[in-house]
């Protein structure tokens, strides 16, 4: 490879790949992220794609994007704005130019900028020829024609060649970032083991893109993002959905309970089902059910039979599972429900993200039906919280809803690989064979948890079901006072889980003018914003909640120490309302957004400053 001159070292860089939904942008982004992970950068990714598999060609509706932020220190977000935008056609440029930082480098496939495509994208004039892109560093690369040319020498026709043009773009980026091609070349060898043609086409195109970037003079400099200083250990790049699946597998192994997944495919949760279906060698039983209801009810059956039972879904599916959730509450069986949230209501925005299922998770059932609700906040901590969901569920004999969302499920991040033996123990309250004292609803007085008596076990035959149970015996009962007692016991049991979850942390400062309260996938953006504001002299703390039902015991104590409390979430104020119910003594300010998009650091900072009547003193670019 040619020696490069003028290499600029950067602390971090945000790259976004955009193109038609069939252009392979997700793969391109993933390959780049994997190579960055292997190189040692910290990173965060954000895939942004339409619900349609192949939306109309060259339209804004059909644009698929993948954004990745890589850095030499801890990366919390995939970045508000990109430093480098790769646009494979006019529509993707049109849709994404607003997400490029002023002065960003924009690489376009010049071959696609013909009249028809420009008009279809909604441009009147060719944006490369008027003043639309003034202030950006535009690289006009003939990606389609050069890909075709380099592959025609090898005997590939144009149609086949066009499938590889994303690799040409990736080659350009590898040059621009001073990145070795090795990990990606290896990937081709493994992935297309039996298709030597495809390996050759991809490798040729990737190198052609790299060499093209090396020869043109449009690049006045290239960039270098040094490896991050990471804690000692083994790492990999992982998406939230895979991390969720693995966390569940780890919990199964650690608890000694076989994993059963009953699930119906639904965007953006399906990848958990797909991942678990691969791992039969770990004994997981994956049942692709006929519908969402069978997904959860088969899981309840599996839980009754002694498995670590899980069902995975998204908002519309959670709605369908409501009645069965009540059954799991009533029968006091362990069950993990993973809700990878998406935009709602109804079918809503299947591929976009939102945090609007919180109230449904907390209350979306008939009757008084409390259960545990927890939330993951980064792709890699989906592993930890899936593990915790299983632990809390098994040990407390109660359903647990784990909330993640589309950003987390599809986004990826560096993951420090744990050792299963170092994960916390999981001890389900199994009833002993022939225990003469066994009663289905006799409880451990400390945590109010009943015992799990598994069919097949000698001397424990019993019946349970959805009708109200008599305390201790579990016989069907409609006695008024017994019902009140059982309602109280079920609620108290869930509240007592607060004894076995960690206390809430507050970051940046323990007391002050403002506490920003968040949960879920917004953590990176908001912690970045608050850190920057604190550097500018603001006294703002940040409490990011993972445990929602029950809340950590010190929640009230934390709230008392701040003059104002602002709850930021990607819904219309569901967590804020929940906190108002629990702590009516405080005033909760809200900042909400429901656009299927994440918060940006800029808008969070602006909102906070407005709330506190402060002016921006430092015009940081974010």
């Amino acid at each position, binding site marked *: 490879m040619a020696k490069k001159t003028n290499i600029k070292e950067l602390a971090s860089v945000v790259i976004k790949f955009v193109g038609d939904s069939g252009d392979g942008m997700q793969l391109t982004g993933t390959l780049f992220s*994997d190579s960055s*992970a*292997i190189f*040692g950068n910290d990173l965060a990714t954000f895939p942004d794609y339409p619900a349609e598999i192949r939306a109309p060609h060259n339209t804004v509706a059909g644009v698929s994007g993948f954004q990745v932020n890589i850095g030499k220190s801890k990366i919390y977000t995939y970045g508000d704005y990109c430093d480098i935008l790769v646009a494979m056609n006019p529509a993707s440029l049109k849709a994404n130019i607003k997400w490029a930082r002023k002065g960003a480098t924009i690489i376009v496939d010049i071959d696609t900028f013909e009249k028809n495509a420009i008009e279809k994208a909604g441009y009147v004039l060719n944006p490369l020829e008027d003043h639309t892109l003034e202030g950006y560093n535009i690289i006009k690369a003939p990606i389609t024609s050069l890909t075709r040319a380099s592959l025609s020498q090898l005997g590939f026709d144009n149609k086949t060649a066009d499938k590889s043009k994303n690799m040409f773009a990736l080659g350009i980026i590898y040059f621009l970032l001073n990145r070795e091609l090795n*990990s990606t070349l290896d990937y081709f060898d493994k992935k297309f083991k039996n298709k030597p043609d495809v390996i050759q086409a991809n490798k040729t195109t990737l190198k052609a893109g790299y060499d093209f970037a090396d020869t043109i003079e449009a690049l006045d400099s290239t960039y270098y993002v040094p490896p991050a200083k990471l*804690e000692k*250990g*083994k*790492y*990999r*790049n992982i998406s939230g959905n895979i991390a969720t699946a*693995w966390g569940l*597998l*780890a919990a199964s*192994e650690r608890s000694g309970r076989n994993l*059963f997944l*009953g699930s119906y495919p639904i965007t953006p949760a399906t990848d958990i089902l797909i991942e678990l279906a691969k*791992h*039969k*060698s*770990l*004994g997981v*039983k994956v*049942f692709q*059910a*006929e519908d969402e*209801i*069978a997904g959860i*009810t*088969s*899981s*309840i*059956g*599996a*839980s*009754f*039979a*002694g498995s670590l*039972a899980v069902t995975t879904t998204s908002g519309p599916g959670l709605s369908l599972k409501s*009645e*069965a959730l*009540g059954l799991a509450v009533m*029968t006091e069986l362990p069950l993990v429900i993973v809700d990878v949230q998406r935009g709602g209501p109804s079918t809503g925005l299947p591929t976009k993200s939102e945090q609007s299922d919180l109230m449904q998770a907390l209350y979306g059932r008939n009757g008084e039906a409390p259960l545990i609700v927890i939330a993951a906040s980064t792709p890699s901590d989906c592993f930890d919280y899936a593990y915790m969901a299983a632990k809390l569920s098994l040990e407390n004999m109660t359903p647990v809803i784990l909330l993640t969302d589309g950003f987390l499920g599809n986004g990826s991040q560096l993951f420090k*690989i*744990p*050792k*299963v033996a170092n994960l916390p123990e999981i001890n389900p309250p199994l009833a002993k064979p022939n225990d003469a004292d066994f009663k289905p609803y006799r409880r451990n007085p400390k945590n109010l948890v009943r015992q799990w008596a*598994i*069919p*097949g076990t*000698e*001397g*424990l*035959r019993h*019946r*349970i*079901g*959805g*009708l109200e149970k008599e305390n201790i015996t579990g016989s*069907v009962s409609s006695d008024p006072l017994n019902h009140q007692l059982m309602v109280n016991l079920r609620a108290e049991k869930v509240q007592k889980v607060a004894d076995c979850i960690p206390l809430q942390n507050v970051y940046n400062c323990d007391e002050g003018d403002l506490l920003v309260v968040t949960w879920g996938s917004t953590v990176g953006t908001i912690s970045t914003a608050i850190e920057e504001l604190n550097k500018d002299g603001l006294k703002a703390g940040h409490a990011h909640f993972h445990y929602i039902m029950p809340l950590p015991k010190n929640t009230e104590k934390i709230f008392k120490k701040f003059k104002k409390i602002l709850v930021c979430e990607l819904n219309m104020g569901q967590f804020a309302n929940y906190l108002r119910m629990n702590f009516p003594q405080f005033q909760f300010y809200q900042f909400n957004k429901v656009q299927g998009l994440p918060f940006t650091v800029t808008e969070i900072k602006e909102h906070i400053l407005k709330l506190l009547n402060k002016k921006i003193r430092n015009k940081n670019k974010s």
Partner: protein
Amino acid sequence: MNNKYFLGILEIENKNIENSYMETIINTIQRSSKELTKEDFISDQMVKWCPGCGAHSILSSVANVFPKIGYKKENFTIVSGIGCSSRFPYYVNVYGFHGIHGRAAAIASGVKISNPGLSVWVATGDGDSLAIGGNHFIHVVRRNIDLNIILFNNQIYGLTKGQFSPTTPYGSVTKSSPYGTIENAFNIGILVMGAQGTFFARALDINPKLMSEVMFEAARHDGTSVIEILQNCIIFNDRAHELITAKETREEYQLILKHQEPMLFGKNKKKGIILKNKQLEIAEIGRNGISIDDILIHDAYCEDIGIQMMLAQMSPPKYPLALGVIRMVARPTYDDLMEEQITKAKNDSNIKCVDDLLNSGNIFEVN
């Protein structure tokens, strides 16, 4: 754990299937070391069905047949949905799960897949399995999960007090159809066979012997067994099956099928079923030159559903109602195939534990 799959599919298919009820059950669900009796399966709960309800005799038949099936009593599990029928688990002293409306088949699927060493029974009704639970019902049948489904068909919604169900005959006047129903009824046998079912039997609540026989056959069958029991709802649909069950008419309207035996019925078994012009017809032995040799021989083990469908479809008053095991064909079960895939994957894969998985693929180390 159940290892019965390791008999191998071929062996299951070629298993010597003989024409007799009460044959030995071949599988590896753990058997009881001591002889059990009916009393072992009676629960301490008060039975709260209406006096005279057909469900009582179904309960009695189950309690009678479970000891004969011979599994360890802890290995029986009964799952139900909602409705009169679905109170069933409370009344049998085994592991029981009273589910929610329509979902018994799905809950039971999870139980069986999770632990194939259990003998899993489903107690359900025509509303529970064919209306609100219709989707689960056809899919469990299609998958051939090894469950025994006892479907109480009283052709009415009893627990909600008398609305028509998916098996209520066309035109019936009920509380929710004061002008008569304007929808066609399901034929359960045809539905089961249409859904790729491997076992379908029909029995009457007033015939405990036949009920026990078909329940035993259901237990013996590997795969989803559907037993339709015509049950009388004494309060809301009394005498719905009267033509078939009444003393005066029952010989004319009951065809009790036995594998490899001629399809005879009527007084002194003088009538029989023949195939004429691609249709089933009733013939009388000794009339029009018909002899016993002309009568169809029942073949429950026939893969082809043609004659079995026609038998399931027969209904009074034109025909007798076919009872007994109409279809029983050997096919691998979902739960066995699942175990086989897992065993194979455990042997073949390098990933033996979660640590192996976490450390597989693209990883890098920081020292």
